[in-house]
């Protein structure tokens, strides 16, 4: 293959990548915030003994886990306004859509973390007169959070990657910026290569950190 690489072009347009990266970071931030808050609530609800709390949480979680994220985004952007008259901007749609998507997964991480704490810990907490919420806050969660952090980081990394779906709604995140750049420069090979590397450089350290944490905490247990 005698292709001549012109990475200089990508460097010349570095501002475009920075702009895209900022948008990607913003979407990730909001989606994580929504995902964590809602996920915590859903995870708690799903463990509830009350059917009226448990059932909606389970329905939401399973619905979002069994449909593609891209379908969720286009539904929120195109179908929601038709049904409700509520038209969200494309960026808001992606942030909320991915937030809801992440919530379903965070809820399951949360639930699995709490369930992994032995029943004896609940017994001991109740035996000294703790209420459910006190036992959860003081005894169960401090132990469970530690087990939830590695899978949470993994989910966070996958959320960053999912922001590229925003390009389907013309959100100017990294992938969409890259596509535009290609239309101007006709250099898909360089642009996509740099794009892929940029993601790898951001995400690999996150995954690495999660693996290290997992190892360290396993050793200590």
């Amino acid at each position, binding site marked *: 293959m005698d292709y001549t690489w012109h990475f200089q072009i990508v460097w010349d347009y570095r501002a475009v990548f920075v702009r895209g990266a900022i948008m990607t970071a913003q979407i990730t931030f909001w989606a994580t915030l929504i995902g964590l808050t809602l996920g915590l609530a859903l995870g708690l609800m799903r463990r509830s003994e009350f059917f009226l709390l448990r059932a909606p949480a389970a329905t939401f979680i399973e619905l979002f886990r069994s449909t593609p994220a891209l379908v969720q985004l286009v539904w929120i952007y195109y179908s929601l306004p038709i049904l409700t008259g509520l038209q969200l901007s494309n960026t808001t749609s992606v942030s909320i859509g991915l937030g809801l998507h992440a919530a379903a997964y965070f809820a399951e991480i949360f639930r699995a973390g709490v369930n992994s704490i*032995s029943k*004896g*810990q609940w*017994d*001991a*907490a*109740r*035996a*000294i*007169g*703790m*209420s*459910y919420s*006190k036992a959860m806050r*003081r*005894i169960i969660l*401090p*132990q469970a959070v530690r087990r939830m952090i590695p899978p949470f980081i993994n989910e966070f990394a996958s959320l960053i990657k999912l922001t590229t779906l925003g390009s389907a709604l013309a959100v100017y995140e990294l992938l969409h910026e890259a596509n535009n750049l290609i239309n101007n420069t006709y250099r898909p090979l360089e642009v996509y290569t740099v794009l892929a590397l940029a993601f790898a450089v951001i995400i690999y350290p996150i995954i690495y950190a999660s693996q290290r944490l997992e190892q360290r905490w396993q050793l200590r*247990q």
Partner: protein
Amino acid sequence: MTEILIKARNVQKSFGTHHVLKGIDLDITKGEVLAIIGPSGSGKSTFLRCMNFLEEYDHGEIWFGTELVGYRKAANGSLVKDKASRIAAIRTRMGMVFQNFNLFPHMSVLENVIEGPTVVQRRDRAEVIAQAKVLLDRVGLAAKVDDYPETLSGGQQQRAAIARALAMNPELMLFDEPTSALDPELVGEVLDVMRSLAADGMTMAVVTHEMGFAREVADRVMMMDDGNRVEIDTPERIFTNPSHPRTAEFLQRVLR
């Protein structure tokens, strides 16, 4: 007149179709040490756990002093489940020690002991710490106050768990097979602590397989089998002249 601390009447409990408690009656008087013995699966742990409502009995009544445990009487006389806060309040007056210790692994020994008194009873922290140190000294763990449970032996963990229960100043101590998960050489140190508690006049209900302990320390021994109270009597009579053949047969098996 002797004060009755626990009064259980016709206590029944089912797990699905499995009838584990078939109507237990029992009085525990203040200052008494009661040993509960019987084969595994006889319902003795379940019954003990009903006393502080970690297990919800579904028939009969358990009274702790003047309070009905876990239920309240509705206007029409039927029993309805009590408020969680009142159940929790009753639990603070009983200490419980578990087979698997169940210390809080993210807290040091001292933090384990002061957690209930400070967070649940909201007592003065400095006073609680002082009391905790006395208790830990008493169970032989003065040197371990700042250690974490994972670094302790089973016997040390169980003694810390006893100190944790005592720090609540309970009126009654419940022991659920406290030595069953221990290596044989560690059983003695835990039984010694329990013996000294008994000598101090603590009211205790002890589910145990340690027949030597039951015989020496208990004021009365209750034999359970298949969800029933087979008999209850002084250790002398239970161990030398049981009135029920099921007791004799059980003791013959465990004491040989």
